[in-house]
């Protein structure tokens, strides 16, 4: 909302300089975004919050200035100078009918005859230009001028164009203005020259046959005031915020008029503001005041709020004197009556539709007294009933661990394109889509973190960073479920290294019984990917990213390993409890053995077989290496293990350890055809 300094001065005495005034307004909730000099005036650009339609007018802002600076409003002197005697009665030549009283509770139409349409006076042109409006002619300019002065949108019709195809010879023919819902097949050409298709959601002003304006939004071209217009019908009405808003959205039109009706105008002042406009028209365009037709009622319900002044202290932590409270309300044009000790009955003026309950009243007191009068205090904070989700601790642990192994945390967009998921070979079958995406780039909620990690990798390859690992912790969405996930991607690390990182992570989270099992995944190379599970619960995936994905993503690298964990699925198994297990007293004995086994026998099988022996002094089995060669033969591999033995009671002898080894070798050769090298 733009207003000028001099325009405001028409309605309130201002002694403050523009900058000081701007500061006062800002600190009262009318944030002044900019002050610009315009000729001999200053234009204030003020951000008006959506709860205060009364501030969408010079008078509304002047009223606020009066309250915060302690000056008197001069509305009556400036505006209310209409000669009541000339308000001609309805002579019955027109009828105004409202078909939908909910959409339009009150409508007024005034006839003004024999106006002379010409350019507006310079002072008015200057003010309109200052706030960014283009002057048209005196009639249109006056309707705009009154809109900005009072907040009441007006519309002037060329009377002789209404019902033009029906005008009969008889001057006594009764003519009609109907406020009704548009019909499905109807159209109107609005003053911007656009043909608008109408629907019953849209309220229109119509003559006996056709719509002549879209109620509260924009007039029709046919009945527009132009150079040769002589007689006008001046509309001033109250249209329902909901209906106006709905129509404005449907039609994609937002005008100064619709903006105000959407937020609600002051129903009680509809006629008064029409009078003001009529007076300006007669002063600047000549003409003769005609009849005033009304339909519906401008009455609003009287709102009285009981206000216990002591509730101010409870909510603000600061008492405000009763006398101060009273003077604040008087300045804001509320009526105040005492009603017992510390209790006031506050009557809310019609233009303050935002004030409906005691909290609104407290806000007014606080706002005008100034937020800076409220002291600072530190509350006693009690233990909340709410307990922190374990997920938060899990995330912290993950972040700490992964940073420790040199990985970099990234945050990527949760909205991705279908195409990117296709490139990453991610199934689109059960993804969740947006109804109103900004672009195709952001139409799907990511089902995996893989794509984001690939884009981070690509960005860094392009900028010359190599051999880096990235991770992201964030929500993914799939099959109707939102879940927190961890993704990790590594350049320059081997599969076993990345598996090691994942194992370290899982160990830090205290997870037991984790199993990696070969599986298939469209994003990972066949035979090079595994699922991760605990019992029956699948908690993640690891693998080598398919080379064609890297090619499609224009990542000039090979050998990219990625892993994903579903933190929600692993959460139930997390255990942060630690118990000290003592330190060994006696030395251990370590023996390495190399076995030649069939290609199909996995490491876990060997370990499982050894474990099955339940050797009481076998402390650790460690993997040392895997080796294939022609010498060993096709379909065979050589596995080297390191076995560590220790007794908690004594130092083991060579003979004892040898006996254990023999037992192990016997079992492995018997069950798995392993051959010692």
């Amino acid at each position, binding site marked *: 909302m733009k207003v000028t300094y001099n325009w405001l001065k028409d309605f309130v005495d201002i002694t403050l300089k523009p900058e000081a005034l701007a500061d006062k307004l800002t600190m009262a909730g009318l944030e002044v975004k900019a002050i*610009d000099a315009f000729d001999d005036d200053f234009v204030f650009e003020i951000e008006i919050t959506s709860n205060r339609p009364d501030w969408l007018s010079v008078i509304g802002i002047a009223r606020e200035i009066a309250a915060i600076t302690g000056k008197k409003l001069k509305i009556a002197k400036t505006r209310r100078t209409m000669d009541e005697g000339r308000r001609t009665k309805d002579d019955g030549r027109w009828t105004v009918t409202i078909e939908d009283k909910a959409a339009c509770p009150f409508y007024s139409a005034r006839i003004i005859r024999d106006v002379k349409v010409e350019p507006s006076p310079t002072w008015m042109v200057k003010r309109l230009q200052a706030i960014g409006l283009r002057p048209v002619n005196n009639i249109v300019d006056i309707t705009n001028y009154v809109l900005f002065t009072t907040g009441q949108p007006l519309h002037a019709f060329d009377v002789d164009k209404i019902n033009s195809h029906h005008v009969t010879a008889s001057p006594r023919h009764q003519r009609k203005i109907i406020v009704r819902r548009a019909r499905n097949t109807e159209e109107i050409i609005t003053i911007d020259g656009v043909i608008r298709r109408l629907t019953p959601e849209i309220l229109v002003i119509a003559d006996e046959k056709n719509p002549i304006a879209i109620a509260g939004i924009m007039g029709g071209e046919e009945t527009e005031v132009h150079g040769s217009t002589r007689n006008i019908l001046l509309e001033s009405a109250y249209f329902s915020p909901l209906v106006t808003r709905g129509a404005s959205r449907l039609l994609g039109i937002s005008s100064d008029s619709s903006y105000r009706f959407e937020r609600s105008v002051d129903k009680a002042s509809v006629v008064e503001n029409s009078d003001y406009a009529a007076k300006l028209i007669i002063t600047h365009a000549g003409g003769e005041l005609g009849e005033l037709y009304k339909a519906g009622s401008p009455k609003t319900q009287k709102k009285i709020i009981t206000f216990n002044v002591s509730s101010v202290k*409870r909510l603000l932590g600061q008492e405000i004197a009763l006398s101060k409270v009273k003077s604040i309300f008087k300045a804001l044009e509320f009526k105040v009556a005492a009603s017992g000790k510390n209790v006031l009955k506050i009557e809310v003026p019609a233009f303050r539709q935002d004030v409906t*309950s005691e909290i609104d009243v407290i806000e007014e007191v606080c706002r005008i007294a100034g937020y800076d009068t409220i002291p600072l205090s530190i509350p006693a904070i009690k233990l909340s*009933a709410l307990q922190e989700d374990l997920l938060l601790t899990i995330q912290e642990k993950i972040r700490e661990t992964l940073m420790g*192994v040199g990985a970099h945390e990234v945050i990527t967009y949760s909205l991705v394109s279908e195409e990117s998921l296709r490139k990453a070979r991610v199934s689109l079958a059960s993804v*969740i889509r947006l109804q*109103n995406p*900004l672009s195709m780039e952001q139409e799907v909620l990511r089902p995996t973190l893989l794509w984001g990690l690939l884009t981070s990798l690509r960005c860094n390859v392009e900028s010359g960073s190599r051999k880096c690992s990235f991770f992201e912790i964030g929500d993914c969405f799939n099959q109707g479920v939102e879940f927190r996930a961890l993704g990790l991607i590594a350049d320059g690390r081997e599969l076993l290294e990345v598996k090691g990182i994942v194992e370290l992570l899982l160990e830090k989270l205290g997870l037991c019984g984790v199993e990696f099992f070969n599986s298939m995944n469209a994003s990972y190379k066949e035979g090079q990917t595994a699922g991760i599970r605990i019992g029956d619960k699948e908690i993640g995936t690891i693998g080598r990213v398919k080379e064609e994905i890297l090619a499609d993503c224009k990542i000039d690298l090979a050998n990219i390993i990625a892993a994903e964990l579903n933190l*929600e699925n692993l959460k139930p198994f997390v255990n942060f409890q630690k118990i000290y297990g003592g330190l060994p007293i006696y030395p251990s004995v370590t023996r390495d053995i190399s076995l030649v086994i069939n290609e199909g026998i996995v490491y876990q099988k060997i370990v499982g077989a050894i474990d099955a022996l339940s050797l009481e002094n076998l402390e650790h089995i460690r993997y040392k290496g895997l080796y294939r060669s022609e010498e060993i033969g096709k379909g065979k591999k050589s596995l080297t293990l390191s076995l560590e033995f220790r007794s908690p009671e004594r130092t083991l002898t060579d003979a004892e350890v040898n006996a254990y080894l023999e037992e192990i070798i016997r079992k492995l050769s018997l069950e798995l055809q392993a051959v010692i090298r």
Partner: protein
Amino acid sequence: MSFDFTALEEEARQKIAQAQDAALLEALRIQYLGRKGLLAEITAIIPTLPLEARPEYGKNANLLKNKLNQLLEARARQIKEDATALFEQFDFTLPGAIPQAGTAHPIAQTVKEISDIFTKLGFVIAEGPEVETEFNNFTGLNIPLDHPARDAFDTFYIKSPSHQVTRSPEKEKNRFLLRSHTSPVQIRVMKKHKPPLAVIVPGKVYRPDAVDASHSFMFHQIEGFLVDEDVKFSDLKGILSVLAKKLFSRNIKMRFRPHFFPFTEPSAEVDISCILCKSHQVTKSQGHQEKRCSVCGGKGWLEIMGCGMIHPNVFANVGYPKGAYTGFAFGMGVDRIAMLKYGINDIRLFYENDLRFLRQF
């Protein structure tokens, strides 16, 4: 008997220069300056000289002695230096081999920094889903579905209505959307728990804004709220001033401007004094504009968050008895705060994840 002082000096100079170690040098010292050395011999003959020749001779002997002392000392020093030069000395001017340490994302760091301030005060962290119900995002927060207040919260809606997207499925017959603020977590927490509640809520939020240097369709917020039997606006001011002082600086100034949010009343926007220019001139004036601060645009103030006392309607919507509790809530944009704090001029940098950027934090 007489001595050629010049020849003696020249001979000694050569011998000393040739001495390769401290022992040889010591031998030379004894040879020349020892009790039975050359100089002793020279001075011994003084009584045999004619009286008039003695002063001249004595002076020359003395000069020779000083000269020899000098030569021996200089050579000793040289030998010592040569010896140490043979040791290998570490060059500490070489750059250290810095280990490949990982980094936390600057947004995550800022979230943690802010959360830590509040958890130290006794607040508890809560999170909520990014896919929300229309009720939690709007209606429950006193934002009527068809009200101009909604204009400030343009929202992404979820397409497939058959998919009920929640972390803990609720039986709510309303549309799903990507939350446009973290405030719906207020509704979730309060519906489940009775006060006292001191909660801090970090998280991602979404609004259909075209991406540019200062806009992003995805960004981060931190929401906080305190609900108890007697929470006051003065408490809100106190707590937020602790935040501003800890997050920015002890000397930061703060102001609360009246504002409108449907879910709080009274509501305020919070400004801090500009962290760059520290000026407090309110406006630009015509023509003669001074160089305007790139951070605050010359206003001297930076808007950093919105806050207020929780609206009674919100308490009613979560089923709290009327008048039983009061509380405050506040919310801030993490991206904006990180940008202010670190002097970052483009929000897109956060989501590109260029290591040259990430490594700076």
